Every structure is written in C-alpha cells, then in structure tokens.
C-alpha cells in the first residue's frame, strides 16, 4: 500500500517538476541565449518480490539543457564573421557616401578648377577669370581638406570605437570569469553530477556577445569552466583569471590607437592583423585596409594635382612677366621614427615624381649592413644597399628619402608619402595676376626677312641629360637621355672643376679633384620645384660631385641664315660655333627651347627666340595647365587626376558593395545556423503547451492513483471498523 502512495507521489512530483521545467521554458522562450531544458526522468528500480519486481514509480534524474556543442560553436563562428562584416559594411558606407557624392566628392571640385583654368586659357588677360581660378583652386583644396577631415573624423571615431570595443571585451571577459567561478562551484556542489544550466546559458550568451566584438576560441575545462582566447592564442579568460586588453598609441603613428595585451604588469603590443572577426576586427581591418588606403589615395590625387599644377605654373610667366610660382602648398610625406629605435639617424622625405607614387605606406629598415624599403601594401622589398656617405639619398616609387648617419641594426622608419597630401593641400597664391599663363619665350621672324621661312611658337625642351666622363677623364660627353639610344649633345667637353655646364636651360657645376672615366651624372626635371634634380650615379668611383641645377628658361637666342640651307646661332649656351645645316621642320633646340623653322628662308633672314615680355595675351602655359586635366599624370602614366580619384571611388565602392553582399550572405548563413541551433535548443511554445497538458494529465493521473490508493486504504480501514 505504501508503495502505491510512493509511486503515485513520485509521479506527481515528476509531473510537477516537468510542469516547472515547461513553465521555465515558456517563461524563457524569448530570453537571449536561453537553451530549452528538459526534465530527465527514469523509472525507479522495482521492489523485488517473489513474483517479480514491482515498480516503485518514477524518479527525476536531472534537468538537462538541450544543447548541441557543434551547432553552438558554428553559431559562434558565423556570428563573429557576421558582426565583422556588418560592422565593416557600416563604417565603410560612411566613406562610400563621402567619396562618390557628385557634389561633395573631390571630382567635382577638380572639375571646377579645370573649368576655371580653361576660362583663363581662353581669356588670359582677364583678371576676373584668374580670380575665379583662384577661387576654384581654393574650392578644390577645401574639398580635399574636408574629405580628408571627414576621413580623419572617421579615424578618430574609430579610436573611440576601438576603445569602447576593448572595454566591452574586458567587461565581458570579467563577467565570464565570474560565471566560471559560479559554475565551477555549482558543479562541484553536485560532484559534477548536475550542471547549472542557466548559468551556463548566461556564460554562453556572454561568450556570444564577446564573440561579436572579437573572434574567440573557447576550450571547455573539466571543472566546468571555459578558457577563452583571442588572436594568436592570447588567453583572455582562464578559470577566474582575466588578462585584460588595453589600447595604446601606435609606435608609428601616435594619433592611432592600437590594441595591446595586458599580461600582469607587462603590456604586450599585439600584431593588429591577428585580431580578427567581430566589431574590433572590423574596425582594425577597416582602418588598415580601407580607411588609410583611401586617405592615401585621396592624398595622392591631391599631391598629383598640386604638384603638377605648380610645376607647370612655375614654367610660365605671370601677368607681370615674372616666372610663375606655386599655386598650391604641397604636402610633405609624413615621417615617423619608430619609438623603439636605438640609433640616432634622422630622416626626411620629399615627393620626387607624382606619377610613380603608390597609395602605400613604406617602412625603411636597417639590418646593420643594408637598408631596405618595404612597401607595406604588398610587402615588396627594395634593397637600398649600404651607402657610405651621409646623408644618403634613396628614391623609391617617386619618393626621395634622405637619411642621416647613425642608424643601428633593427631601426625602422615609417614613411607615409601621401598621407598628408589632402590634409595639407592649401592655396598659396593670393594674387590672381600670378597665374602664369604665358610661356617664358616667344619667337619672332624679323620683319626684314625676305624668305618664306616661318618659325613655330616654340616649346620647352626639358629633356633629361646625362654627363659621362670620357677616358681619360679630362673630358666628358653630354647626352640627351630622352631618346633611345641617347642623343649626344656635345662630346669631348673639357672638364674644369667648378665651371658652369649649361644645357637645355639649366646650369650646374661639377666640382672635385678626381673624376674617373665612366663616372656619370644625370639631370632631370623634378616634380617638386622649378629646378632640375641632380643625381650622381650610384656606381661613381670618382671624387666629383654635382651641384647647382638652376633652370633659366629666359635666355634668348637668334638664328641667322647664311644661305638658304645654313644658319648660325647666337646667344645659345653653350655657344654654337659654325654654320648649322637647315632642314625644314627639324627641331632646333637651345637654352631649353625647341623651335621649328619651315619654309624657305634666305640668306640674311633672322629668327629670334626672345623673352616674352608684356605677354598678357599669351595663353600657351594656361593651355598646358588646362591640358593637365586630361594627361595621364598618375599611377605610372595610366590615369588622369580624376581617373586616379575614380579609382579611389571604384575601390571604395567595390569594397562596400562586396561587404554589402557578403554581410547579407553572412547574415543569412548566420540565420540558418541559428535556426539549426534553435531547432535543437530553442523553445517551441506549442511543444511546451503539449508538455503542459502532458504533465498536467500525468499529474492528474498520479493524483488519481493517489486517490485510488487512498480509497483502497479507506476500504481497508472500513474493514477494521
């Protein structure tokens, strides 16, 4: 009889616990991270009797989480990727909206600058047209600055987002550690028999949240705790111990926050690229792979525009007949000496050739014997050798770097050629008359000429030139290196230390006691100034050096015909001796100018190349300035200014588009994985309703059994009465 009661009671108990579990499930149906629980029941072992085992009811063995570790891990993986992509997409959209905007983008500003330049080219005398140009220049510079400012704001915002993300990670890590403790103790209290389901759900939920910030890997420990690590195995949580993350200023760019790892009292810098996934991974990847390249690309376009326009303007004459100056302030590369350098070498850099610039940053390294330049975008290495004389000059990808002595092995220098390009672009010209619309020289056929010879208006001849010492090195040969093979301009020039050497409008001096046969020097037009770039060949063994390089494009000369087929030249530097043979239409180049004479000149005819004074109406240089718009000045001669900007827009657009697609795909993937995981672990209310009914019926049935047992007991009692 007693076992009847016991049995019924056990049924009622079980049903009650079942109901409680079901209600717990129903109550937590919407709780994030909740895993449905199921009561585990088993029949009690029967009581042995002579006729067999009589059942003793049911016993509840435990409440179990319906939990699939594989699916949960998969959700974690998809989750971190999904939050990485959607965060990346979110921040990327900011740049996307910024650069391609037809009104706010830089393309429209460049266009208005060149529109205004075209206006000046059509009306070079017009001061209002020039004023408009300066206004448009200001507009373009402002546009570049403000886009850069906006990108800079985004970068600053990223700093606080990174800090916030690191704080969240630390907070979550501490909560996980605390839960680790609770779970460990709760588990220990049941000798590991029962697990604190809801605590584990909470911990899983925290891990899931942490995982949204950064990709983590989780190891279950035997005591119920988990070890959480990030990156390349840096342990964030183990047992109840937390190793916090910190933000520190970058060693290469103090304006940039980086994530470091706090281990005890030591702060260990982490390789930022190892921190993947999640919001933090997205922020870091966005900054390194999208934001900074975008800023560099923007800076490159700004530099290209400023330097090309300046260079062309410097070749011309302004309204007052003075050689043109700079229209824009040109940014200098951003240089930083690594804070951990031990040597004392100093570094400086200038832009030499905008055409060769990339959007990458560079690192100059010294390994104790050789210098190397690493292009960080693709880790391409340029060996710079082991210079012995300092300051040593290197030229890589259009950047001229000068390094003073004192580097020690392991020293590093960060060079960001274009990072400041847009930020520091300013209009330095305020006087509209200083726009150099005219060319320095003009040509004129004398009115007394009797022949039909006509002279072209002339063009600059700034072809690069090389000077190579002959054997024996008492003389040298000057060649124009713009042709293949180089054209010899003059051979066997006697070398006198320090004497002026003038070709193509420039004048330089070679000095020093001991030139060696084969030593060579080159002169080429520099992007950065109205002067020539002088370079001594790296393989020179002599003791001579080159200096000067002043460019003077205002040296008149005149061509006098001595017969219909010969002419003499006066005023050329160096002087031209003897009669030259006339071929109609052939280039005649002196003093940095090239003219052509066509037709039939007669003896005594004179053609003058003279200083272009008073040339308010000359628009030739303005035409050249205007033509810059359509010249492939950028990216190794493959893109115009606006084309280079278009590449930036295309890159940003393509990346955003890619992120849009992949983040959507990832969301779907995540949703599917969550659905799969939820199909195991999620609460189905209909199922719970059915369970409610089931347990209610079970309870009612057990109670009925109890009632029957009582009736039986009463019957028994009635017998005794």
């Amino acid at each position: 009889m007693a076992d009847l009661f016991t049995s019924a009671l056990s049924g009622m108990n079980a049903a009650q616990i079942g109901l409680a579990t079901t209600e717990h499930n129903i109550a937590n149906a919407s709780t994030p991270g909740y895993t449905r629980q199921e009561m585990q029941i088993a029949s009690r072992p029967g009581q042995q009797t002579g006729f067999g085992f009589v059942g003793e009811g049911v016993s509840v063995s435990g409440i179990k989480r319906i939990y699939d570790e594989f699916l949960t891990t998969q959700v974690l993986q998809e989750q971190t990727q999904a939050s990485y992509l959607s965060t990346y997409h979110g921040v990327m959209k900011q740049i996307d909206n910024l650069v391609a905007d037809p009104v706010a983008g830089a393309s429209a500003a460049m266009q208005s600058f060149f529109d205004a330049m075209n206006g000046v080219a059509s009306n070079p005398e017009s001061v209002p047209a020039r004023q408009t140009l300066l206004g448009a220049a200001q507009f373009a510079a402002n546009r570049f600055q403000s886009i850069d400012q906006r990108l800079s704001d985004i970068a600053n915002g990223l700093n606080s987002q990174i800090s916030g993300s690191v704080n969240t990670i630390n907070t979550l890590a501490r909560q996980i550690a605390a839960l680790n403790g609770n779970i460990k103790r709760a588990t220990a209290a049941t000798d590991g028999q029962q697990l604190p389901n809801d605590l584990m759900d909470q911990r899983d939920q925290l891990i899931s949240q942490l995982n949204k910030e950064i990709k983590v890997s989780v190891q279950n420990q035997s005591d119920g705790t988990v070890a959480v690590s990030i990156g390349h195995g840096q342990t964030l949580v183990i047992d109840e111990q937390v190793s916090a993350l910190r933000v520190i200023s970058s060693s290469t760019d103090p304006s940039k926050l980086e994530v470091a790892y706090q281990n005890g009292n030591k702060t260990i810098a982490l390789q930022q690229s190892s921190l993947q996934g999640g919001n933090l991974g997205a922020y870091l990847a966005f900054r390194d792979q999208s934001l900074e390249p975008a800023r560099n690309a923007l800076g490159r376009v700004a530099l290209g525009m400023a330097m090309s326009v300046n260079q062309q303007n410097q070749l011309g004459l302004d309204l007052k007949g003075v050689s043109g100056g700079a229209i824009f302030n040109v940014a200098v590369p951003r240089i930083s000496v690594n804070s951990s350098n031990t040597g004392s070498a100093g570094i400086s850099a200038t832009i030499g050739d905008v055409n060769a610039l990339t959007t990458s940053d560079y690192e100059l390294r010294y390994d104790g014997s050789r210098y190397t330049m690493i292009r960080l975008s693709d880790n391409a290495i340029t060996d710079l050798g082991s210079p012995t004389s300092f300051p040593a000059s290197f030229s890589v990808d259009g950047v001229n770097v000068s390094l003073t002595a004192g580097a020690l092995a392991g020293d590093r220098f960060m060079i960001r050629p274009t990072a400041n390009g847009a930020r520091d672009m300013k209009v330095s010209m305020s006087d509209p008359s200083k726009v150099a619309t005219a060319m320095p020289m003009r040509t004129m056929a004398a009115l007394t000429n009797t022949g039909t010879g006509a002279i072209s208006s002339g063009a600059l001849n700034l072809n690069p030139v090389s000077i190579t010492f002959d054997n024996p090195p008492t003389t040298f040969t000057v060649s124009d290196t713009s042709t293949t093979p180089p054209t010899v301009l003059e051979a066997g020039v006697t070398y006198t230390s320090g004497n002026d050497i003038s070709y193509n409008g420039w004048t330089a001096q070679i000095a020093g006691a001991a030139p060696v046969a084969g030593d060579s020097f080159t002169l080429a037009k520099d992007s950065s100034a109205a002067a020539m770039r002088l370079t001594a060949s790296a393989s020179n063994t002599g003791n001579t050096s080159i200096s000067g390089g002043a460019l003077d494009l205002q040296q008149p000369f005149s061509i006098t015909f001595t017969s219909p087929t010969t002419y003499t030249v006066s005023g050329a530097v160096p002087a031209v001796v003897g009669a030259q043979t006339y071929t109609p239409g052939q280039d005649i180049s002196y003093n940095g100018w090239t003219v052509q004479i066509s037709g039939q000149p007669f003896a005594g005819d004179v053609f003058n190349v003279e200083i272009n004074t008073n040339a308010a109406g000359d628009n030739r240089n303005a035409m050249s300035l205007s033509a810059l718009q359509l010249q492939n000045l950028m990216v190794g001669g493959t893109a115009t200014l606006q084309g280079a900007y278009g590449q930036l827009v295309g890159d940003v657009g393509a990346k955003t588009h890619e992120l849009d697609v992949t983040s959507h795909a990832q969301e779907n993937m995540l949703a599917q994985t969550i659905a799969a995981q939820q199909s195991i672990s999620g609460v189905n209310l209909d199922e719970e309703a059915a369970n409610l009914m089931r347990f209610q019926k079970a309870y009612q049935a057990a109670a009925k059994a109890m009632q029957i047992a009582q009736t039986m007991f009463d019957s028994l009692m009635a017998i005794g009465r």
Partner: protein
Amino acid sequence: MRISSKTLFDSNVASLSQQQARMIQTQQQISSGRRVMTASDDPVAAARALEINQSDAVNTQQASNRVSVRNTLSITESSLTSVTELLQDVRTAIVQAGNGTLNDNDRRTIANGLSGRLQELIGLANSTDGVGNYLFAGFQSRAQPFVNVSGVTTYNGDDGQRNVQVSATRQIASSNSGADVFMRVKNGNGSFVTQASSGNNGSGVIGQGSVTDPTALTGHNYTVTFADVTALAAGTNTGNGVISTPAVTSQSAVTGKDYSVTLNMPAGTYDVNELTVGYNTQTISTLDFTAPGTFVVDAAGDNDTVTLTGAYADEAALVAKIQADLDVDAAGAFAVTSTGSVADGDFEVSIARTAAGAGSTAVTISATDAGAIAGGVANSAGVAGGAAVLTGQPYVSGETISFAGLQFNIQDGSTAFADGDSFTVTSPGYTVTDTTASTTRLPVPPATGRMPWASGQTISFDGMQFDIQGTPANGDSFTVVPSTNESVFKTISDMIAVLNTPVSSSSAASLTNSLSHGLNQMDNALDNVLSTRSTLGLRLNEIDALQSAGEDLSLQYKQTLSDLLDVDYNQALSDLMQQQTNLQAAQKTFSVVAGLSLFDFI
C-alpha cells in the same frame, strides 16, 4: 524539423525588414530618379560615370571655348572688313591721283584725304575685342601694337597667336598677329621684285613675273643686262680692215655667242705654174692627181677639189670650171692659161698663182665661237675651244659673211687688212648676273656670251620666270631682287609723301612709277587682308562643324550617364509592385502563422 517559436518570429521579422529595406531602396531610386546613389550600388558604373562626367565637362569647356573663339573671330572679321573697304578706297584714290590732268594742288588734296585714311587704318589695326585686349598685338594684347611716331608706323606686338582648344584634338587660333596682317606685305609679286634700271634707254618693260619652282628660289639679287649685236676690230690689228655692224638676218639662228673672226693672208710667194692638167694624158707634175675627173689642189692648204665631168666643149669651159671649183675669183687670183689645143684632144691647162701682194688675193677668213677666244685653251669647264663656224674660207674685201643669223662684211680701210687681223662679233641678247654671289646665272656656265632674246620672250632661272616686252637698248638692265616686307602704313605714307611733292616735267615719270608701285602694294595689302579674312572664315566654318559634333557628343555623354546612373522607371515600378505584393503576402501569412498557438486551445 523542430522550429523554435523564437526562430519563427525572428526569421519572419528579419524577412519582413529585408523586404522593407528593399522596398525603401526601390522607392528611393524612384523618388530620386537615380539607380546608383552611392558608389557601392554599382562600383563599375560609378567609376565610369566619373570619367564620363569629366569628358562631358571637358566637352562643355570646349563648347564655351568655341563660343569665345567665335566671338573673337567675328570681331576680327568685322574690323578686317572695315580694313578692306578702307584699302579699296585708298586704292581708288591712288588711281585717281594718276590722272594726268591733276595738278600739284589736286594731288595735295588727295594726299590730305589719304592722311585721314591712314589714321583711320592705324585705329582699325589697334582694334580691341571690347574688353580692352588688342586684336592684332600677338601675345602683348594689353599694349597698343601699332604706334605712329613722326609718320613712321611701327609694330610693337609680336608673332604670338593664341590657340584655343575647341575640340578634343583641335586647337584653333583665335587671334592673328598684326605683323602678318599689316606689316608683312611682300612687295613685287610676293616672292621677288622686278625693276628696270633708271638709266635704261630702250623701251623694254619688265613684267612682275611669277615663281615656277619655290624650292629653287635663292633669295639672291640678280641683274638682267641686255646687249645689242656688236662688231669690233681688235686693237692689235696691224691692218686696217673695217667690220660692218652686223645685221640679224635670222632671229631663230642667233646663238648669243661671241665670235672671233680672223683673216689670214699668209706671207711669202708660191707658184702653181707647174700645175698642168692634161686633158687626155692627165699628167700632173707637183700636185696629187687622183682618180680621173677629180684632183685636189692644196696650194693654200684648203684642199680644194676640182671635179671634171665628161668632155668639155672647149678650153674656156674647162678653165671656167676649174676656176669655179678652185674658188678662184674672177679677179684673177689664179691665172689659167691654156697651152694646148682642144682639137688634138691633148690640151693642157696651166694655173699660175700670182705672187702675194700683187693684189687682194689669197685671203682666207676663219671664225670660231667664244669658247675658243682664249687661243684654244680649254676653258674652266674643261671644254676645249669653241667650234669653228668658218674655216679658211677665201675671202675678198667686202664679201658678205653670214653665220649664226648674223650678216656683216669686212672691208679694206685706208689700207688693206693684214694677216692675223681679228674682229670680235657679239650676238645680241641678255645676260643674267647673280649680284649676291657674283656669278653668271645665264647663260649657264660653262657657256659664255648671252642668251638670245626676242621681245616678250620668257626669261626663267632659279625658280623665277618673267618676261620683258619692248626693245631694250644695248646696256639696259633690269634688277630682280627678293620681295621685302613693306607695311601697308609705309605704302600709304609713301603715297602721301609722293603726292605732296610738286611734280615737274622731269619727275613725271618718277611719279608714275611711284604711283604704280603704290597701286601694286595696295593690291598686295588687299590680298593679304583678304587671305587673312578667308582663314577667319575657314576657322568659323570649322567651329560650326565642331559645334554640332560637340553637341552630339554632349548628348551622347548625357545618354551614357543616364544609362549608367539613372533608374529605369519601368523596371523600378514593376520591382516596387512585386516587392509590395511580396511584403503584403509575408505580413498576412506572418499574422496567420504567428496566430497559431496551441495555447488558444487549452
């Protein structure tokens, strides 16, 4: 599969919000009219659109350039139209000034009129484009290009020409150098100037000429000199022969060469008495007697032959024949006597040469062309000697000599001519000398002498060609020099000065010459202005053509941009409808699905 209730809601909410997002995007596309709102919507189209935008903007720049060039050219054209009219007026005035009935005062009045026109012309040459830029100043558009200081107008501008980009590949000059329009007016025919020397006596008039081969022009100065036929006794002559003035009998045979005519009269005595002609026996003592009927007499070295044909009726006929063949004149240079009788068929003829000096006998004449003047020494071109035109011809005083279309004679003067006397005969014609290089252009070396010439005949050398009409006198010359630039201002100033100068009868010709030069120059100046105007017209035409091409291009760019960026309304509206249907369906079914709960039944 088990579905958790949360999933049911979550997935439905996610799906609804996705559909809503899509609808919003479609709606935004429709309301903005743009399919590509940010670069990420279609990165390729966005980047391409930037390029097209740039091309479109550049095309727009060029369109505005075309308008600006057209305006400048139109202003230039209208001021050049005024210049044309003015120059025509000036030309008319110059023609008027040539009227022989005008007196000094009349001409002065015309000059005053021209002064006014000159100032007007300077004003036109200093035209501005309406905002103060000089049209004809080259690059120095802010400085007045033409300045008249004490009657001389100078050009202070330069040759600069402003080019403007009017299409992607075409730059058109929007300005013209004032030097080209007003200063570089070539005189003469534009390449060279022909002029008669002031001292000419003949009636020769030289034409303006033309260029036949521009590449052969040298730019040198030339003189064309005419010489008449002449005959001159050499100063070294010992005799006293007088040569007549040669007459030209055949113009076409005139060679232009100089000839040396020499008379030879060998000294000493010789006798040909021994010469016997045997009618039958044909014996001969001292001279070579060859085939029957023919024998050679070589007494004077000129190998005369005598040809006897058939029988002669009598001795006299035979003698006459011999005399004729031996070029023996009737005067009896040779005495022919008969020593036999015809009847016996055995007569002999004896020819006796009388002694020299006894009469005008045994004279021969020779002539060679100029190549041989220097005694047969090879000339500079290596051609030895001139060709002989006469060789050892027996000659008697006064006999007519003809060669090379010339005819003359030499007569004994006070005394007879002597052996070796020579005379020079020059053909009539012209020579051309390059005075710059001091070389003879015509006749072309190594020939000497002169070019035969007839009135109106074309003279050409070194790429030039002109003619001379009339008859130049001996020694008349004409100069041919390269054209030089003479500004239209100078021409008019010169005209004014000429017309202000009183004319006497002696300076009337000079006035005529000056006026004709002035007329010619005005024509050249007009041509110059008209050719400038025609290039302006061509440029304006080209701009019109480019304008329509540019408009087409602009339309094309706009179309491409629209294709790239703009929304396709049909597509978008249909998308919107579909999305709306989808969303409504999802909303309805969601409420149905969510509303199903077992709890409703317990």
